[in-house]
């Protein structure tokens, strides 16, 4: 493998890791607060992507300036996160809160099935993409390769910005502290006067927004087809499980690891491209059964 190829793989992986991290972060945040692994998270990614592409195509036709195109992506993610996230949480998850965890998981699977067809009804099956914003931001050279600024600078910057912002929000703001309290102990938090329901809804919508944002940022660089959500959900599952459920910094490192490993595989053993993330996950879980970054706790008897 030549140096150039290695750099290309690294650039691909870096950019992809940014998207993967955003989606996984949303998934792990929701798990932390609600205790539910949201299978429909992949649909939020897909809806975010399709909505963003639709808005961006429309804005590009109107010759809108670059910042409007970028704002359209974020707006799409916000709309999808608030509307779909809200519907999911209020309409569905609240109703199964006291049921078996297996059923809670299955409810989100059902929602995923519904969204999957809904998405096909709205956007059809032909590929969808809007690359305008990528070409507007242009290319730049680094280490002998040429890469788009959008993928190599903007996506990682957004991902890292979201990471820092979330850490700050969780540690320094009142809302963030309430979210952490609910994550650690729902009953105790409620007893302390925290509205766990409201916090749960807010955290869910935040997570949904992050999933949709991943899709929205991916929209200008990939062509969206039915099934994008499916691929993303299983992949972000593997990131979250490898990192350890609810681990934010862990998700960042694992997303990088898996993103880079995957793109190196694309250039070296393309047959294993899809398999690599799962091989990593299996290997990690064999050594650390609760994920890389989870500290195991003994059960009291």
């Amino acid at each position, binding site marked *: 493998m030549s140096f150039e190829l290695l750099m290309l793989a690294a650039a691909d992986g870096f950019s992809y890791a940014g998207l993967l991290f955003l989606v996984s972060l949303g998934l792990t945040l929701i798990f932390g607060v609600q205790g539910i692994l949201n299978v429909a998270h992949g649909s939020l990614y897909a809806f975010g992507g399709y909505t963003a592409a639709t808005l961006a195509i429309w804005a590009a036709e109107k010759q809108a300036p670059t910042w409007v195109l970028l704002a359209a992506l974020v707006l799409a993610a916000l709309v999808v996160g608030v509307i779909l996230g809200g519907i999911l949480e209020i309409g569905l998850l609240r109703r199964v809160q006291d049921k078996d965890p297996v059923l809670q998981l299955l409810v989100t699977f059902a929602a995923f099935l519904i969204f999957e067809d809904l998405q096909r009804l709205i956007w059809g099956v032909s590929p969808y993409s809007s690359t305008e914003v990528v070409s507007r931001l242009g290319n730049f050279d680094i280490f002998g390769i040429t890469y788009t600024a959008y993928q190599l600078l903007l996506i990682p910057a957004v991902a890292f910005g979201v990471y820092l912002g979330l850490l700050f929000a969780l540690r320094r703001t009142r809302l963030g502290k309430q979210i952490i309290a609910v994550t650690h102990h729902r009953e105790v938090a409620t007893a302390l006067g925290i509205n766990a329901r409201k916090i749960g809804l807010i955290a869910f919508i935040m997570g949904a927004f992050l999933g949709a944002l991943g899709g929205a940022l991916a929209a200008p660089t990939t062509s969206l087809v039915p099934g994008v959500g499916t691929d993303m959900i*299983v992949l972000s599952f593997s990131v979250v499980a490898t990192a350890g459920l609810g681990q934010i910094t862990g998700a960042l490192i694992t997303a990088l690891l898996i993103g880079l490993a995957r793109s190196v595989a694309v250039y070296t053993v393309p047959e294993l491209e899809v398999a690599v993330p799962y091989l990593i996950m299996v290997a990690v879980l064999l050594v650390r059964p609760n994920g890389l970054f989870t500290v195991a706790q003994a059960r009291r008897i």
Partner: protein
Amino acid sequence: MARLFDIRILTIAGSLLCLILGLAFPWSKTPIIVGLCFGIATLGVAAMVRAGQVSFGHAMYACIAGYTVAFLARAWPQLDGLLLILAGVGASLFAGAIVGVFVVRYRGIFFGMLNLAISMVLYSVIGKFYAITGGTDGLRINRPTLLGIEFERAGFETVLLVGTLLAAIGLGILVQRYFQSASGEALAGIKTNETRLEYLGLSARRVLWDGYLFSAGLVGLSGALFALVQGLVTPDIGSWLRSGEFVFIAILGGSGHAIGAFLGAAVFELVKLFAAAYMTGIWQMLLGITLIVVILVAPEGIVGLLMKKSALATPRRKSPWGTRREENKWTP
């Protein structure tokens, strides 16, 4: 006893319906066999569900068995169908025994995700190695002899229909006996209290491994039968969505009794057929809505509803689904 009686009648009526429909409308033979295959696979997945574990990767055993059948049938076209099926089940049992050793160390989400990961590796590898596996196009299987007799397409399907039906009934009874045996009840104990199992001198991992092996074999058998009736295997038979459908059917039918797997599969196939005829393109949506309605209205599945209806049913298990693992918050 009244409950048992009901289920017997239900089984006989269902079997007759399958036969009559299959013979009267030859086009319905394949969907019926496919439905029965889903039911058999779900028996296995339901065993895991009774232990409180959801696997989003069990379809890999259908995949392993299906491809074993395909490889063997292509290498030795003279091999009998029954031998192919046995070989397929053997391969899935073998794989289940090995994978089981690893996955039974995990519970909950991690159990589900590890199964998913392993099945995804298999799925993607099969899809990529075109030269050996035919890639996403899959492999064709020529119709083999059954018990040494060569059949026309129609005859072959009829024999498969009868054979699958008999296997379904036999396995349903067997699995129900397993559920109620010491081993099966200990398996259900994994869901509620592993600490107690350990302090009874039992290994929860071993109990789960036994159940896992069982489930791998059942899903494998369904995959082998599925491959023969379709005359084709594609990687899709091992996709995670297929695994999800098995879990779906297990919830829909309910895991309180083995017959739930077949009731769930019947409803599942009917929804699919109905959607294919009248609402093309939104069958997943219909399935999703069905699943939500079942979870909200009848969390114990169809079996739970039936048991509640029959007045003499023993209240053995209030609800295999309704109660969350109860945590004892009391302190001295």
